[in-house]
């Protein structure tokens, strides 16, 4: 009787031990922007199989989705995030500034540590009744725009920058004319929702404005997605627009404390593989892998992309000059139209 009890006890102990062992399987926490949900639902399982095949180790990935400024705030306040896959360079820079990751994070991986990129495109109503083709159509008096408030939404900051870069190129860097152009552009905005989703609803569901401005990937998703397919919205990619990189980085402080550096780096490196780059194009992101680029050439319109850093300086400079309190954006909004 006693023997039996002992055996049962050892068995129980053994199962308990193995349970704790499997609980010690490493876990990565990846923080992303809001609309990345579907993307990482596809990527993460693929990486886990890949990792198990390569190393024989089991790994788990937890995902967190929110606006990336919010994510950065949470990480600064101590959330244990191993990797970030953002849509804003500035929000990674903030982490670097606070010493959570190295200052030259953008050299850690290829292409400025951005495995994929996008740009700002327009979504217009069926048949493009206002004949909107380029940025200068957006400052016409009869055109009304919808995009989120650039203060509260990252993709709207790119919309603002794209308009600025277009005008700056057109007027050969004449700042006064550029300001006038962008001022007109801002005063044509009918509605400043606080986030991307609110802008989509205002334009697509509630019939506000003639054009919605957001990332090309989003524009195509709205036009082709089941929710608004029936509306027949059309995608307009202007001939010139802004380069919007989607940066990735390893949060050094966290991975060193957790001992997950190897896994975290492999996870981010995995985004550059052919398999994932192909997958990303199905979500309408532009990628770097030469074979994938060649294979999907028809999917993406030709566009000249201007890197904001080459014209306007570092993200720090852009942030203070344009988006700070009483920066250029505030000044232009305060002007009488």
């Amino acid at each position, binding site marked *: 009787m006693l023997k039996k009890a002992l055996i049962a006890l050892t068995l129980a102990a053994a199962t308990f031990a193995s349970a704790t062992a499997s609980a010690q399987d490493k876990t990565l926490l990846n923080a992303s922007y809001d609309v990345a949900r579907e993307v990482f639902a596809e990527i993460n399982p693929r990486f886990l199989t890949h990792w198990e095949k390569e190393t024989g180790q089991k790994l788990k990935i937890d995902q967190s989705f929110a606006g990336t400024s919010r994510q950065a705030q949470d990480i600064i306040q101590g959330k244990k995030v191993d990797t970030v896959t953002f849509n804003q360079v500035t929000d990674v820079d903030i982490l670097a500034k606070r010493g959570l990751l190295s200052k030259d994070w953008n050299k850690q991986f290829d292409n400025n540590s951005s495995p994929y990129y996008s740009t700002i495109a327009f979504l217009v109503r069926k048949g493009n009744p206002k004949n909107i083709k380029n940025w200068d159509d957006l400052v016409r008096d009869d055109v009304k725009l919808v995009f989120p408030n650039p203060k509260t939404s990252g993709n709207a900051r790119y919309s603002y920058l794209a308009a600025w870069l277009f005008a700056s190129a057109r007027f050969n860097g004449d700042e006064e004319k550029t300001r006038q152009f962008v001022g007109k552009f801002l005063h044509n905005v*009918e509605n400043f*929702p*606080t986030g991307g989703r609110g802008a989509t609803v*205002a334009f697509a569901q*509630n019939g506000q404005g003639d054009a919605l401005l957001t990332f090309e990937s989003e524009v195509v998703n709205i036009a082709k997605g089941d929710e608004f397919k029936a509306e027949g919205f059309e995608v307009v990619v202007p001939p010139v627009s802004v380069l919007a990189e989607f940066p990735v980085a390893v949060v050094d402080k966290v991975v060193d404390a957790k001992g997950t550096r190897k896994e975290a780096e492999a996870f981010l490196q995995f985004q550059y593989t052919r398999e994932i780059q192909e997958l990303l194009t199905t979500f309408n992101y532009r990628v770097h892998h030469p074979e994938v680029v060649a294979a999907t050439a028809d999917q993406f319109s030709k566009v000249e992309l201007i890197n904001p850093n080459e014209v306007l300086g570092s993200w720090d400079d852009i942030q203070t000059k344009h988006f700070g309190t009483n920066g250029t954006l505030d000044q232009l909004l305060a002007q009488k139209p």
Partner: protein
Amino acid sequence: MSSLTFPRFFLRHPILPGFSLTFGFSAFYLSLVILLPICALLLYLSDMSWAQYWQAVSDRRVVQSYYVTLSGAFYSTIAATMIGMLLAWIITRYDFPGRRLIDSLVDLPFALPTSVAGLTLATLLVPGGWLGQWLYPLFGVKLAYAYPGIVIAMTFTSLPFVVRTVQPILQDIGNEHEEAALTLGAGKVQIFCRVIFPSLVPALITGASQAFIRSLGEFGAVIMIAGNIPFKTEVSSLMIFVRLQEYNYPAATAIASVILFSSLALLFLLQLAQARYISGKTK
């Protein structure tokens, strides 16, 4: 006066037992939930110089947002008070099928996440929406994504305050007063103006002031329907949010403090006014 009565009150032995325990708990709870956050706010403010504070709260765009918020809250309070009184009247005075349903529907704005409410209202009221397609040609003004949207959203979220404060009073009054007035020869209008309405005034003031203050701080519902155009339809709570997004925490706190202290001052004034009204009535 009050400074004299204060210590005497504490020296007197209370009749009900457990005073020190309950008073202590109340004070502790108040400190934890209300005073502590206010202290944190003040602490944040103390980092700023007066000049910085003034600059943060007197920015032209922020001042315009006070105006939008205050006027929006004012109009919505009038609307909520009138609609709320009617609702309370119907619920308490008439027994009709569906009364209980209406009674519980009144609390819906409390239960619904306010941003959902704002988004739903916007969808209904845009020129092509269910309601908007009739209302837009009628008034010729944009309701959603414009100033009227702010007032509508604020009215929606603050309506239960008025209903729920007026309702118990109406229930208490009962029919006796009206019947007495009727036998004394009062007309219907007279009964309402001189018998029912005066006893409702304190509750109406309380309800209206709660509705007003709720509207001052309303964020979710308003930003979904306002359009948020600078200088036109930006409310103060959005300005706080914008400053937070700029990582400009002191300025956000400064604007928050303006809203907080004006609400506090208003609440205090209303308390005083109400105390005076009640004591004036009993004299």
